[in-house]
């Protein structure tokens, strides 16, 4: 079997050891790191995303596959020192100020990375200023905010408003998510989009990126 296909297969089984070994072998055989990344690791994660959406596999399978992907990425990273790991876009994510829940937002981060995005995870309890400063510094195209509490949801609007004040609306897109959040709420506060789960968040961020191009 072709090495890249093997990487793609073992990644889907969440076998990080095999993915590491095969990535090493592929590099020894002079396969381009970009090809290993695109046709092996990211292609594998794309299939995982589709299978997850179709209920063919469950969340733990996705996370194991992501772990295997990172194992391969760790070997590729040093080879992209000059230009950095090729990415289809940069996303800042975090749980909003006052909210300490971050597992959902972390899942979104894992899925975004799996799809080839660069993700800067600010953790939880992130202030509106921090979201925007980081997005500016990192030249990120999207800010993803999460809230689990109805009491912290208003912070999302503060970020949207602040972005507007700074004249950055449209240049930096905002996607929101979390259990109490909805499409209607996103529209109400002027966010660009709402993602109802991790796979949907990836699809939505991809759509936002293509719009901003």
């Amino acid at each position, binding site marked *: 079997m072709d090495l890249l296909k093997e990487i793609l297969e073992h990644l889907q089984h969440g076998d990080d050891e095999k993915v590491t070994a095969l990535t090493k072998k592929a590099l020894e055989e002079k396969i381009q790191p970009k090809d290993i990344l695109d046709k092996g690791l990211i292609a594998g994660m794309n299939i995982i995303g589709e299978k997850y959406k179709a209920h063919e596999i469950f969340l733990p399978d996705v*996370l194991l596959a992501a772990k295997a992907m990172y194992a391969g990425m760790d070997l590729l990273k040093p080879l992209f020192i000059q230009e950095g790991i090729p990415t289809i876009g940069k996303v800042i994510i975090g749980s909003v100020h006052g909210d300490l829940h971050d597992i959902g937002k972390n899942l979104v981060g894992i899925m975004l990375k799996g799809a080839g995005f660069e993700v800067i995870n600010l953790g939880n309890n992130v202030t509106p200023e921090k979201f925007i400063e980081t997005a500016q510094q990192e030249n990120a195209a999207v800010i993803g905010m999460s809230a689990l509490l109805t009491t912290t949801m208003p912070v999302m609007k503060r970020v949207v408003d602040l972005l507007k004040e700074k004249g950055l609306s449209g240049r930096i897109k905002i996607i929101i998510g979390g259990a109490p959040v909805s499409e209607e709420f996103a529209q109400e506060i002027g966010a660009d989009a709402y993602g109802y789960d991790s796979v949907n968040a990836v699809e939505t961020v991809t759509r936002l990126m293509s719009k901003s191009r």
Partner: protein
Amino acid sequence: MRPILRFLDDELIERIISEARDVLCKLGVEINNKNILSMLQDHGATVEIDNNHVLFTDEIIDRALKTVPPSFKLYDVLGNETHNFSEYNVYFTPGSAALHILDYETKKIRKPKTSDYIRYAKVISRLDNIVSQSTAFIPADVHEKISDSYRLYLSLLFCEKPVVTGAFTSEAFAIMKDLQLAIRGTEEGLVAKPLTVFSCCPTSPIKWSDVTSQNVVDCAHYSIPIELVSMPLSGFIAPVTLVGTLVQHTVETLSGIVISQLTNPGTPILYGGSPSIFDVRYETTPMGAVETEMIDCAYNEIGKYLGMPTQAYISLSDAKQFDAQAGLESSMGATLAALSGINSISGPGMLDFESCQSLEKLILDNEICGMTLRLIKGIETKEDFPSLPRFKELLKEKHLLISKHTSRYLKEEFYFPGPVIDRASRARWQEEGSLTLWERAHSEVERLIKDYSTSRLQEDTKRELTKLMKAEASRYGMEFLPSECKKYLL
């Protein structure tokens, strides 16, 4: 620990059985079958042949109870074991012999045809939580004299699962037995690996018709398992109290046990029934009434006390449409039945007082069965102690989604229902078309039919079954079977 529900204590069970014996020995039973009356007379019962009446004796009741098997097994058409009716093992089977099906397109009931039956057999083939099929409804496109055997024929042709069935006439038994012999090869083979369970129904109050009592005898001759389906109606043709109804149910069921065991000791029996309360407002027999379900669970306790496996028509509904009532009555019945350890739980798919089958409801009921089967596995420790290492891992990793403990037990601990059960977020549900329960269930029906794999029964055997069925049909002037059967006539 497997949770077990009980309604009766041993003292009450003994009293009910004792009262039932009193009725059997002092008031007796009407049996409209001279041969059976003679046989009972030969065994010491007091018989008035002309009045079709028999007074049982404690001796023959005891003798019958000693020979009833405490358990038995069923095997599919390929000979693989599928059921072990013993202890508190639980198996679901679709409700049987409906006159109508609920048509998805029109949302109205109609008489089913061969093509409907084949669709049913294909669907039931793929439902994991319903491990047997029943002859669920009666195709109206064949002569009524073969409507019982024809259902069995189609079931055996299209689905590998064992069949809960029954004969509508004494004459039909022969072909229904021959169809089974065509699969098992010999009578001994059929005894060794039972393929069907025949429902045999006494008539309340405390009677047996000629046909149904003869069915008991015929099944017993070939050791074909029998489910005795007594149907007292509380407050109408049975006492209004649940205990009084249980006494009557015991009388009727014990009488069937005696007939079967004196005919052929060791005949496998399911201590079954389809009792109901009588709704004096509507003159109906609600199968989904909580009291009906309590009677079912309670007679199951009596059956177990007497030492045999049990059956009940309990996980079904009286709703006319595939609605919330259909779900609530079916799931309440399934849950109570499984907690009580009723070994063969009949009902899935059934609506409208056992008169209407719905393929869409079967899909939902399959999930009810799945959840219920999970429920009775109870709560068990699985590498849970000591707890400290697990919680250290949780606090370190922040989640346990990819912990080895999770991957080992996730699918064992949780039952994951199919798409008919909506567990999506509202946004995802909307994105996927805001489908109603009925639409989701129908989409599953069509998917399962599309993915159906032909039964692995040998093609020669399928042709033999068709030959037998064609010969039976021609006895009643039907020269051709419906076109769906043609390919098996080659």
